[in-house]
């Protein structure tokens, strides 16, 4: 991270302002604000139930916060559905894997290209030259992505049959295929072994470096968070208790008390 970056960190691209979300009487997020800067890797950490995933779901449009605004590139995302948010350039992965289980790896990644395909069903049905060209070009693009993620050898396997670690990669591939400006990664490394985690980190850093994609990721492994993130937001009981570069957050007393704890040595 020391050398100059291809895409230096810029202005805020995503601004979360005073978001509150509750389910009936349960408050998931209370008055939360933070900014995500262009081209940065932003980690969201916090204990289980702190509201991290709910926060991503708000940004993504799956949940609609009762209060507050989310602003993407100076445009307020107000009461809109996930498919419109996707159109505006935010893609994501899910905590418990939300893959299309009966479809092949390549088809899963191809669904991520949907926003780049404009042929309607009649053009597809009659296989017009435009539909065929579009299909071919997007297929090539997806082949590149599966090559990049080193999952080309399983491209035709239905994802439901793959082991967990590979499914995680497919999901990342699908999110990458959208070429979104912002990727929301909900625990991309959960359930992985050290080696798989290292590989996943490599992919995330490489994507960030090569395409300048802004990343917002939820992660529990503090080692990973400290290694790859530029800034960290700490949530506890739906509130922001820390926000800043990893080193700063790590030494913050409130964060240590709530989440990190003290080493026993």
């Amino acid at each position, binding site marked *: 991270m020391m050398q100059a970056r291809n895409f230096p960190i810029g202005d805020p691209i995503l601004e979360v302002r005073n978001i509150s979300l509750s389910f009936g009487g349960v408050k998931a997020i209370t008055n939360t604000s933070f900014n995500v800067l262009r081209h940065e890797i932003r980690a969201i950490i916090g204990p289980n139930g702190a509201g991290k995933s709910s926060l991503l779901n708000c940004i993504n449009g799956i949940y609609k916060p009762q209060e507050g605004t989310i602003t993407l590139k100076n445009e307020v995302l107000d009461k809109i559905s996930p498919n419109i948010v996707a159109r505006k350039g935010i893609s994501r992965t899910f905590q418990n894997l939300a893959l299309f289980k009966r479809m092949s790896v390549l088809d899963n990644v191809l669904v991520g290209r*949907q926003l780049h395909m404009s042929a309607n069903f009649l053009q597809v049905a009659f296989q017009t030259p435009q539909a065929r060209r579009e299909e071919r070009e997007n297929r090539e693009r997806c082949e590149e992505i599966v090559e990049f993620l080193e999952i080309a050898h399983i491209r035709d396997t239905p994802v439901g049959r793959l082991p967990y670690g590979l499914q995680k990669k497919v999901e990342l591939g699908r999110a990458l295929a959208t070429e979104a400006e912002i990727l929301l990664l909900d625990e991309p490394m959960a359930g992985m072994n050290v080696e798989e985690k290292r590989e996943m980190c490599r992919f995330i850093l490489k994507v960030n470096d090569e395409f300048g994609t802004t990343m917002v990721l939820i992660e529990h492994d503090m080692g990973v968070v400290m290694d790859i993130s530029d800034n960290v937001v700490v949530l506890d009981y739906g509130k922001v208790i820390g926000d800043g570069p990893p080193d700063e957050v790590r030494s913050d007393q409130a964060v240590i008390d709530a989440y990190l704890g003290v080493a026993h040595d």
Partner: protein
Amino acid sequence: MNAKTVFMGYTRSDLANLVVALLVALVVIPTVVQTDYWYSSILIPWLCLSLAAIGQQIVMGYTGQLALGAAGFMAAGAFACFNLILRVPYLPFPVALALSGLIAAAFGILFGLPSLRVRGIYLMVATLASQFFIIWMIDKFGWFKNYDTSGIITAQDILIFGKPFTSPFEMYLVVVVVVTVLTILAINMTRGSTGRNWMAVRDMDIAAESMGISLLRTKLQAFAISAFFCGVAGALFAFTYLKSLEPVAFDIKLSFKILFMVILGGLGTINGAFIGAAFILLFPVVLNSIGNNLFHGAIDATIISATEQVVFGALIIIFMIYEPLGMAKLWYNIKQSVRSRFAPRSELPRQRAT
């Protein structure tokens, strides 16, 4: 998918399948089959119901929306075709057929609306409305039946550019052409981006939405296209098989039959629609002839026919336990085992590492 495409995105085996199917349909069958019975009682209804089953596949097998009301859309298509030919002079049959499909598609969109709110078994109950509403509407308003009081209306002759297609064989040709064209269109859609959208919605709707797919558009599109196929199938069914138009022919029983065709044939496959239709349609005929030939005279005819139904039901249960993915999967397994027996070792599909 990985196999090399030869022509317009089709692989060599796709084209081979098409050529074989057309040869069988247009050369082998016409030379072998000489009796009208085979055309008018087996081949024509089989192809018509296969087309309806493709419609059911699109909405249920590909988009994962449990809809039950295919026969309602078939009725809409059949009566639309009747009225179009009756009221629009010089309308060629293919145009009337396409328009009937579009009218059925409009009903499909209307009755697909509940899918935006409810899912699963509740959606099935909601879509039943289409079945009952369409039949009720046709019965209630005399205009649809041209104020015919007898209850059964004879279908008009099929005229294509002045040439009548009235013999069973000629009708069979019409059905083969329509079914072939629509099947190819369905295959194109299911393999292309349209089908991927459907399947994405089926497998994980929230993820599909997060990838920019509009659930509203995708679901209604599937309902519309499904109803289009059912509508065309219904019109063909009425004009070439029943040769009459009566709402009773499109009752809930037919909807269930089409549902079983799709489930038995294999959800999410096009060939499953044809296999399932053949099974549901032909198996009772086979059982019937076995029953009559084996026990002729020995057992009362009513007992034989009741036993047939029991055997048929038992077979469905056994089959679903043995191969829950349907007959298309069974067919695929048979093909694979034949291939592995005859193909040289190097041409076997590589065991994929996971």
